[in-house]
């Protein structure tokens, strides 16, 4: 396929679309599907019947999951758009009848609210617009242009330069400069190299990657193929959690379609470049989000990390240099190549370029997926875009970065969101989960929850993480139940330090973060729960067994 053929396909799709007067887009990403979007699609199709003027389309995530199932009606004349929320199959005929007339007032979801208006979409530009199971839809939205341009008009070095210039940093949490990572792999002399897409989105409360894969899977494949060209790899793996059946299905479809269009496989675009992608399923292990554990899992082993160095870029899958990036990182690449690194670098802040997808959840008015430029104040995300706290409650903290992150209180809400600022206030960017808590949440309980998570997700290889997280959870539990003493709290803090400093991989090294950040901002909540020690009071400690039962 060359650039002209690509344009032909796009043209055909657009012509087809122009024949219709209205397009009904139904979000069929997992969030809306679980609230019944599948039936809505059926209902709408039945209501439309064989009217060729109206197109009913299953599309990806529109963002506002709390309003699901979402339906967007676009009329070709004038291009006006109306969004409906909480649509049921029973509403279908009413919606179809309203076409061309006044919208169904009671279902309308206003789109001029900040939730939609304050967003800037790069990775999600096609989400909720195109049909994720139709490669031609993606091509019509300028898809695969970047890949074809790279292969036919650019040298691998040119691609590396563009990515480096863009200032893109890894979106999986670490924030490692993507250009640097790519260059390292590119420089390794090896006959075989691998590109791996990390789609093992394990943070509880994070569903950005899922949104991207379910809404626009080709974008990720294109990003991977460009990366493979730039670093000189010919094989790719997508490591995805088995908990995402819909995303897996859509990825499989996408790989099949791209292969058929010869955008994956042997001699892509009649060049010497060949690239195959294979899906590898996770099986329920958070630690496999860690690069070396992920590689072990791809190799069919227990997902246990190994010490670094050597880094995967030097010795990765089966010992070969391996480039590992996360879904959102690859998702940015086609746009960077299409619009240039310069353009991308113009968005965001000095050290954090571009946009970031966040998953808003918890005690907040609007839950769902948003994509905002880096540097946006946290307060704007929570109170303006998220619509603040429901039920008249007050804001207490927002948790970012999942089990490796921290809780940010009201006093730091004006921090502008980028990698370095979030680290300064004791949290991390992480993969983009944001969970808002109101005054009903106990911070000790939150810390205990995350420690329980880390303890049960610890792979068990290194001692500090295996035993340390378990013991820290025990101490947190004791404190949360009002049984802990000042000595227990001191021991907890000491364990935090040791586990952080000595654990083998990122899971253990960051497991104490939720405790440390809640201690930093909500220490009084811990102290309120402490009881005096045995020395200070005469009564007996431990459980007294009075009379043995026979």
């Amino acid at each position, binding site marked *: 396929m060359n650039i002209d053929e690509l344009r032909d396909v796009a043209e055909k799709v657009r012509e087809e679309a122009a024949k219709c007067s209205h397009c009904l887009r139904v979000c069929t990403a997992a969030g809306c599907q679980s609230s019944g979007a599948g039936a809505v699609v059926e209902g709408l199709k039945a209501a439309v019947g064989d009217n060729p003027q109206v197109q009913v389309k299953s599309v990806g995530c529109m963002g506002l999951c709390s309003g699901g199932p979402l339906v967007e009606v676009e009329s070709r004349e004038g291009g006006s758009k109306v969004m409906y929320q909480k649509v049921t199959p029973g509403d279908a005929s009413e919606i179809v009848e309203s076409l061309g007339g006044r919208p169904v007032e009671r279902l309308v979801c206003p789109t001029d609210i900040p939730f939609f208006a304050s967003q800037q979409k790069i990775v999600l530009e096609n989400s909720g617009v195109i049909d994720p199971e139709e490669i031609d839809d993606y091509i019509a939205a300028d898809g695969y242009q970047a890949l074809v341009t790279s292969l036919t008009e650019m040298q691998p070095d040119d691609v590396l330069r563009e990515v480096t210039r863009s200032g893109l940093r890894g979106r999986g949490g670490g924030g490692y400069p993507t250009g640097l990572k790519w260059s390292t792999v590119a420089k390794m002399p090896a006959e075989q190299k691998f590109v791996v897409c990390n789609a093992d989105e394990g943070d509880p409360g994070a569903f950005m990657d899922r949104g991207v894969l379910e809404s626009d899977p080709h974008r990720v494949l294109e990003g991977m193929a460009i990366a493979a060209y730039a670093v000189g790899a010919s094989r790719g793996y997508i490591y995805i959690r088995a908990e995402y059946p819909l995303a897996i299905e859509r990825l499989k479809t996408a790989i099949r379609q791209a292969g058929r269009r010869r955008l994956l496989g042997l001699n892509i675009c009649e060049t010497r470049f060949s690239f195959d992608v294979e899906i590898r399923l996770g099986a329920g292990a958070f630690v496999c989000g860690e690069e070396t554990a992920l590689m072990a899992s791809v190799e069919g082993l227990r997902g246990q990390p190994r010490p670094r160095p050597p880094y995967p870029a030097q010795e990765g899958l089966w010992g070969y240099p391996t480039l590992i990036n996360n879904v959102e990182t690859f998702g940015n690449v086609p746009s960077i190549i299409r619009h240039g690194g310069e353009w991308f670098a113009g968005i965001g802040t000095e050290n954090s370029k571009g946009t970031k997808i966040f998953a808003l959840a918890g005690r907040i008015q609007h839950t769902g997926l948003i994509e905002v430029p880096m540097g946006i104040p946290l307060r704007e995300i929570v109170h303006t875009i998220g619509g603040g706290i429901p039920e008249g409650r007050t804001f207490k903290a927002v948790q970012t970065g999942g089990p490796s992150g921290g809780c940010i209180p009201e006093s730091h809400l004006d921090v502008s969101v980028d990698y370095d600022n979030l680290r300064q206030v004791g949290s991390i960017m992480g993969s983009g989960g944001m969970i808002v808590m109101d005054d009903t949440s106990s911070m000790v309980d939150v810390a205990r929850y995350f420690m329980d998570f880390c303890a*049960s997700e610890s792979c068990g290889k290194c001692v500090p993480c*295996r035993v340390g997280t378990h013991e820290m959870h025990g101490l947190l539990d004791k404190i949360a139940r009002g049984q802990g003493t000042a000595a227990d709290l001191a021991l907890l803090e000491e364990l935090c330090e040791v586990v952080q400093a000595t654990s083998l991989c990122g899971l253990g090294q960051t497991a104490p973060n939720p405790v440390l950040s809640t201690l930093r901002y909500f220490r009084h909540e811990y102290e309120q729960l402490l009881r005096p020690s045995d020395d200070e009071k005469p009564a007996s400690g431990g459980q007294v067994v009075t009379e043995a039962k026979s």
Partner: protein
Amino acid sequence: MIVPATPPKVRVVTLKIDDKDLSAREDETILEVARQNRIAIPSLCFLEGLSIWGACRLCVVEMKGSSRLLSACSTRVTEGMEVQTNTERLRHYRRVILELLFAERNHVCSVCVSNGNCELQSLAQSCGLDHVRVPYRTSVYEVDPTHDLFRLDHNRCILCTRCVRVCDEIEGAHTWDVMGRGIGCRVVTDLKRPWGESASCTGCGKCVQVCPTGALVSQGTSAGEMRKDRRFLPYLSQMRGVR
């Protein structure tokens, strides 16, 4: 006639360990170089002749210019590296890691067959660990006495996986592996069958000899009677080419 030298495959680098100037081959690890130079770095999962595991974290050292600690067993030396192996901070961390190990399972030294010949026990002494503040877990673990020659006591296992590695890398049987995850990890033979019923076990006993504690011992030993013999290891690992 003098034949011109072919360039060496590995270079020699100079580095500092505990302020001592040393030279080493660049394919050697910090731990190897330290031990050659009589600088003691505590370790448990490391055993010369077996592959590197990097899990006990006792051998962590500080490196100038790095905020992270590095495990000495798995990190190769580089030119100009400056390493500290015995700072107050590291000694503290090592004691806490040992505390965690003692708290994890039931290491009652006084009644252990390896009492007096146990690496965990002697490390506790050399690292100055004289009591354990971390609450003991006191979970019950079983003892597998089904093998004719050997006995497995999970209570004393520290999951260093030396047995797994020696069985796989040297004996080639791969009878042992680790099952489960996190605190629920334990070593298993085959499909978690009793050891005595294992079809893959050759009965060579290498796992017993490399075990640092009283988890794997010979049948018929009682408190303090078990002694391990590892003289076979360097020789056999050379034959197998394990690094």
